[in-house]
């Protein structure tokens, strides 16, 4: 074993000095390789981080949301549904939620108006008060202590005093959010008492969720039940599909890179041929020359992979993935500014290695063998 390690060490040493002798040529290969890793790595890191972000946000969401459908469209839910749901064994808590959208022609943006939950003591509001997201504040140019004026769909104006701004940590969900009291909300949208936008259920044992939904669906035929798990798996599917589609498109660049690597490995310079010839003439076997060439590939692969991955990491987590933003995130007038929390996992690194190192190795194998089996007298003649 020790002998084997020593042998590999000498081979690496020799390969490294050989790479250094042809610096310009290898640098070009290295740059293209690192660029491919950077592109694919950016897509993967970004998509994974955004999926994790969604999972973290949804961790605090209710286990089940109940909507009422009329003619297949989402409609207001009467309070009587709430009473029915509370009676199911296993339902820890049921609450009516009030939220809605408002298009604001002044800033050309959509706002989300919402009444904070009764359990949310931090955001408790009296009539005439509001707490707004950072995006709304900058779109309307208002700050804490100032007044926010909203025009309702019926044309009436609602004047609200801005009590506070929502923390910028939660921008991904709160940028377009306007919190207001229940009385203001009902007056603004001319909503009668006893109806809600939807209902939120808390279930203490997650294994009981499906049974509760099954039972409830039998009595509430016009209700639609959406579980937190459904939302999570939809996010997971949508973002992994977007990531996959982008990578499939980038597949052409992997193909081009493999052809480039094949070409580079095939076109041996006369110097390289002479070097291999001399090595074989002084006793190196074909197997040794192949090992040397494979080490050459491994060193280039490893360094390009590390550099490309680090660049991708910096691009996604330090520069907010400027190049990928519109494709993977989506867009809106009030767009939350958020920095993704750095997250890397083994599966991503392994997948990225499969996408880059495997095609490179496959493309260079035959040229390496051809070079290594050259007869010494042929090249030195």
């Amino acid at each position: 074993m020790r002998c084997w390690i020593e042998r590999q060490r000498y081979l690496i040493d020799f390969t490294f000095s050989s790479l250094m002798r042809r610096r310009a040529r290898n640098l070009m290969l290295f740059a293209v390789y690192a660029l491919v890793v950077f592109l694919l790595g950016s897509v993967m890191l970004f998509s994974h981080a955004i999926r994790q972000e969604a999972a973290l946000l949804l961790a605090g969401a209710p286990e089940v949301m109940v909507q009422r459908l009329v003619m297949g469209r989402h409609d207001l839910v009467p309070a009587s549904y709430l009473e029915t749901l509370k009676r199911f064994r296993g339902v820890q808590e049921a609450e009516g939620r009030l939220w809605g959208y408002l298009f604001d022609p002044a800033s050309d943006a959509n706002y989300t108006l919402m009444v904070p939950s009764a359990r949310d003591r931090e955001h408790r509001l009296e009539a005439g008060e509001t707490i707004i997201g950072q995006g709304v504040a900058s779109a309307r140019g208002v700050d804490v202590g100032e007044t926010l004026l909203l025009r309702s769909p019926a044309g009436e104006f609602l004047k609200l005093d801005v009590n506070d701004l929502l923390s910028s940590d939660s921008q991904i969900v709160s940028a377009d959010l306007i919190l207001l009291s229940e009385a203001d909300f009902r007056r603004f949208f001319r909503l009668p008492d006893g109806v809600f936008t939807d209902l939120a259920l808390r279930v203490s044992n997650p294994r009981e969720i499906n049974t509760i939904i099954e039972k409830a669906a039998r009595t509430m035929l016009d209700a639609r039940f959406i579980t937190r798990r459904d939302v999570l798996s939809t996010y997971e599917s949508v973002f992994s599909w977007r990531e996959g589609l982008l990578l499939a498109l980038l597949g052409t660049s992997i193909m081009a890179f493999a052809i480039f690597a094949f070409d580079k490995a095939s076109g041996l310079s006369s110097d390289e041929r002479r070097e291999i010839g001399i090595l074989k003439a002084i006793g190196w076997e074909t197997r040794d020359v192949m090992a040397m060439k494979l080490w050459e590939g491994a060193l280039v692969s490893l360094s390009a992979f590390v550099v490309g991955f680090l660049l991708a990491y910096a691009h996604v987590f330090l520069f907010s993935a400027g190049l990928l933003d519109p494709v993977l995130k989506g867009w809106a007038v009030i767009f939350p500014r958020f920095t993704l929390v750095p997250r890397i996992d083994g599966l991503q690194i392994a997948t990225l290695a499969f996408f880059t190192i495997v095609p490179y190795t496959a493309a260079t194998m035959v040229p390496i063998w051809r070079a290594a089996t050259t007869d010494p007298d042929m090249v030195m003649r």
Partner: protein
Amino acid sequence: MIFHTPIMAMLLASGLSSATIVWAAGFGIRVLRHWDIESGSARQLAMERRTHLVSTALVWMMVLELASLLLFVFNADRMSVMFAGSMCAVGTLNANPFGFPALMMKTAVFFGATLWLLVHRVDLKGRDYPLTRPKYGLLIAMAPLALAAAGLQLTYFLGLHADVITSCCSRLFTAEAGSIEAELAAIDPGPALLLLFGGLAVVLGLAILTRRFERAVAVYALAAALFFVADIAATVSAISPYVYEHPHHHCPFCILKPEFSHVGYVIYLPLIAGTAFGLAAGLLPQRPPPASMKTELPRIARRYVAISAGLFAASALVALVAIARSGLVLL
């Protein structure tokens, strides 16, 4: 779900490796028919030259197959969030009828690839490449397996749809389910642990015997294969419940999850590697032994046996530590 990134990576890998294995098996047929190390004919020289390419490509592809199995299991676990009713890899693999057959076939290819790599390593040590024929024979046997594994994997991935409601592991690994998984889960923990640690004692005893009796290596190889089955049975029946600290949770896949410190990998990887080393040791001794490796071949076989026994002991030790640290009392 074909556009899921790890799925595309696995399809790329399996496409490349099965193409390489089939191409190399074609070369293997030529080797079986015409290989004659004594001959200096142009055909023999061309074949010798080509073996360098074939064996290097195969080493890479076999390593890729090994990595691909790990990725397959890890990814199945990660994708479980996308399927209603699924809690771990079992739910994802159960999402269509091709999941488990694909896993079985990939595991068979994994064993085949490890065996091939070990035999290849020994072959390179002899100056006349004494194991070239058996090595290519093994490769030809492996080619249909690799193709079947790639085909099943592709069918499985093509048939994966997010709207499928699948079964959770707690439904599959229960004594009432009436399947092979259920049979394993139904074994009492006492006999299961006796099977594991008794089996380990037998395996270690046989490993000591191989030091003295060369023929014991073949028996050891058989014992290694049986120990693999015994260990899996014990994991489903007893070790998993100890890890989860829940007497009725028998899933052998949930122990791969991060919440259980990925302990499953530390149990399975040495177990699989140990089995592969044991089987490879059984393949090595030839009658009569090749002249170039008369003393070397039995020595390597004994070393493989020692490595295999060490890996089995390591896997069982991890299981023992998991049992000792568990708050559950089954016995």
